[in-house]
């Protein structure tokens, strides 16, 4: 499909211009102005609308396709949350307004949303306080690691290492490294953390552990209490990667289980759509040990019920975001939580885990499942058998696209060969799950009868198999 630049017609005037009496060059000396106009599209509004509408048709989204992308929790995003996030009273609000003396009165509704969402997240995770500032899950991880560093530095602890199991999310080690820690990786045993392996690396240098629980194999870390004790015994801290919270919502409160820091992905568990890769929102919750270090500003409620921004926290790590986080995303999560309420949230985890186990069970005789036991919200299958026939996980993924399903996550986690990580979520119907199974079984039977046909997939998407090696080599990154 042509790019937007190819639609440009010289001399066509774009629809959105301002009437203005003077030219920029009359107001500024030539040496401060650019030499020519930027070479941007000159299009009619209909040109633009048609182009983007055509682009949108070349995309899979949850509204049109099953999206069993493991670790991504692609559930249905209710429509009313879009409506509330678009309310003018929220969208037109300048973030600096409450920072001006006397103007906080004009932002009470927005501050209330932040305050109450923090309270709700505390209740949902068993933590004592939250910051909503982190703008994505990995940003939350970085914030969490920085909070851990601040805690140790305040106590005068000389701790330089963070332990990350090989079954944790890939961002965990990079977040710890970027916060200034050395990363110590430990190998899992039977898909979960091996307390013995852990005990060998825990020492006085241990600042903490970053855990994904359930982990990226979809398994709950059954030695959790032992791990908590071991880490706390050296004054280490436990970080809970909450990207997989959908699995345990209301079933286990990470704060009560012994975690000191938690991040959540509001766009996953709380159904704020992820916009083809962002924006997200990655709030971080802490227990009272770590609360003094949270980023500023923080929203507090005065005795008269008014909300205001407080900056008076001498031990704060500082500013993680320019303002209060991705407010538009928070609004959607806040509305979603209010709509579901206690019972609704409990049912989320129950049905998410139910659908994952149902798929696992229906697929177990067709795909190798390395840790084939009760899983949480997702499970990892392996196409090792198929790979021996020359058909790899990526080929199966592409063949699923032809059936109208988005593919599972492939080649992640790195510890399973040829893996396909499946997360169906609670909002997909049984009919959809069954259709997915039937389609996958059909693909797997073709691996036996006609493997070449699978390797040629996808055939019915807007383009066929794309050459990733060529893309990296030719580096055409703009046009």
């Amino acid at each position, binding site marked *: 499909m042509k790019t937007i630049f190819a639609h440009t017609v010289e001399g066509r005037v*774009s629809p959105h211009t301002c009437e203005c009496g003077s030219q920029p060059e009359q107001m500024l000396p030539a040496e401060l102005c650019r030499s020519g106009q930027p070479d941007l599209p000159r299009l009619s509004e209909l040109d633009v609308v048609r182009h983007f509408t055509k682009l949108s048709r070349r995309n899979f989204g949850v509204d049109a396709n099953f999206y069993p992308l493991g670790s991504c929790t692609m559930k249905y995003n209710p429509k009313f949350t879009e409506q509330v996030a678009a309310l003018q009273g929220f969208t037109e609000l300048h973030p600096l307004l409450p920072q001006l003396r006397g103007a906080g009165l004009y932002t009470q509704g927005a501050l209330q949303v932040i305050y109450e969402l923090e309270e709700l997240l505390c209740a949902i995770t068993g933590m004592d306080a939250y910051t909503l500032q982190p703008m994505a899950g990995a940003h939350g991880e970085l914030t969490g690691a920085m909070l851990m560093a601040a805690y140790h530095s305040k106590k005068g602890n000389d701790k330089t290492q963070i332990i990350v199991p090989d079954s944790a999310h890939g961002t965990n080690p990079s977040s710890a490294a970027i916060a200034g820690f050395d990363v110590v990786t430990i190998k899992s045993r039977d898909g979960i953390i091996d307390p013995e392996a852990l005990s060998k690396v825990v020492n006085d240098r241990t600042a903490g552990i970053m855990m994904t629980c359930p982990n990226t194999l979809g398994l709950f870390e059954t030695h959790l209490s032992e791990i908590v004790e071991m880490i706390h015994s050296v004054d280490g801290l436990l970080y809970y990667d909450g990207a997989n919270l959908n699995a345990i919502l209301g079933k286990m409160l990470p704060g009560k289980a012994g975690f000191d820091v938690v991040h959540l992905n509001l766009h996953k568990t709380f159904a704020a759509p992820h916009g083809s890769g962002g924006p997200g929102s990655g709030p971080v919750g802490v227990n009272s040990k770590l609360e003094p270090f949270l980023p500023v500003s923080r929203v507090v409620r005065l005795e008269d019920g008014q909300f205001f921004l407080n900056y008076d926290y001498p031990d704060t790590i500082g500013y993680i975001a320019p303002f209060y986080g991705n407010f538009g995303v928070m609004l959607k999560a806040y509305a979603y939580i209010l*709509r579901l309420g206690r019972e609704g949230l409990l049912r989320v985890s129950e049905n998410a885990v139910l659908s994952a186990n149902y798929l696992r069970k229906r697929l177990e005789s067709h795909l190798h499942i390395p840790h084939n036991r*009760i899983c949480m919200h997702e499970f990892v299958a392996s196409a090792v058998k198929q790979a021996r026939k020359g058909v790899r996980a990526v080929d199966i993924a*592409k063949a699923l696209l032809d059936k109208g399903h988005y593919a599972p*996550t492939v080649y992640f986690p790195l510890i399973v060969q040829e893996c396909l990580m499946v997360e169906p979520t609670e909002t997909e119907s049984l009919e959809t799950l069954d259709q997915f199974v039937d389609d996958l079984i059909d693909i797997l039977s073709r691996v036996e009868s006609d493997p070449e046909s699978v390797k040629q997939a996808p055939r019915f998407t807007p383009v066929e198999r794309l050459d990733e090696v060529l893309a990296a080599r030719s580096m055409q990154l703009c046009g």
Partner: protein
Amino acid sequence: MPYIPYTRQQQQIMLETIGLRSMDELFQDIPSPLRSPEFDVPRGKSEMQTVEHLRHLASLNSTGLKSFLGAGFYDHYIPAAVSALVNRSEFYTAYTPYQAEASQGSLQALFEYQSTMCRLMDMDYANASVYDGGTAIYEAMMMAVRQTKRRKIIISEDINPIYQSMLKCYTKNLHLELIVVAQKDGLPDLETLQGALDDSCAALVVQNPNFFGYILDYSDLFSAARDNGVVSIISVYPIMQSVLKTPGEMKADIAVAEGQSLGLPLSFGGPYLGIMTCIRKLIRQMPGRVVGRTQDVKGREGYVLTLQAREQHIRREKATSNICSNQSLCALQALAYVCLTGPDGMRSIAAKGMELARYAASRLCSIQGVEMLNQAFYGNELAIKLPMNAYDLLSRMIPQGFVPGFPLGRYYPGMEDCLLMAFTEKNSQQDIGMLTELMRGIIEG
């Protein structure tokens, strides 16, 4: 059960398939002492009740104020077509385009976004966005640190102070040396900046227009940086970029921006858009996602995420950055905005703000004791000196429905009598007239 489709009977069938008797058994791996009955969340509401509650909260925020507040975040008109396009659910309900063939819409849009940002900034490459303008500066700094293997960073104090706070926070544990060179009356101290450049510096960070609204040409400074092997980073205001000398023309190495002004609502601070562009040489240091053009097996053009070997899912603790999400939808929004305004529209929007700022300057300076902070060239934002404390002025004007600007004393001690005022096409001469008279009344008594 909102949004959960299973009937009781279906749940039963599913449990039987799994070989379990109850839902509870699904959670058998969570040890019972950890199974918490506490879950103190209120009962659910209907959709109607929830929407009503949110409408009420929205109504508690006043949007009727006449505002001249900018400070890096600007209230521009957003054409209706922008949200109509971004609200297509094929875009907003999709995830990161891991399967390129099923995500050509998002991928091509991001490729076009990258191209647009390169054209606007006059730079070679762009990534597919980072969180915001502040994280863009931080990531640019880290690119420079990796490229030069040096640890000193020179920052001009007239870059947005909100971002300065973020940079300090992000680098606290990284053994980097941030040297902030003080501004003088709202202008960068070019001589001191140049003097600070040496072969131990990784990066130099400046902003144009700067935080005080002043427009500068950094060509000479960047040339001095280059002579010392220092990476030049410039943060810009994208709307003004349709008029101003480009980062490319000044020979910057990395140009970044807060993209909020390109069709994104202020929305109380987010989501916003971190724009990052760089010269050819630095592309392998660029963090985040990058979309590249390629071909399918039949030779048709298509797009994929590329250069992923730098990223966290492959390199884990050795990754270029930990960025996983970006701001794809916001990037799409900015692209749609740029396409709908075009180069002429964007230039006219920049010119309108500048024209109103000049009109305001002439009116406001007729108030006794009000003067320009200095005589340098400015764009759509201007700094004035008042004969009183700016905070006091604000607290008397806000109850009358006017937010005259941002008090500079909040970030710059000693500038308590200075006010920073921004103008966009949403303001009018009439509003500026009313503002002037109200201000005159307070100042002249």
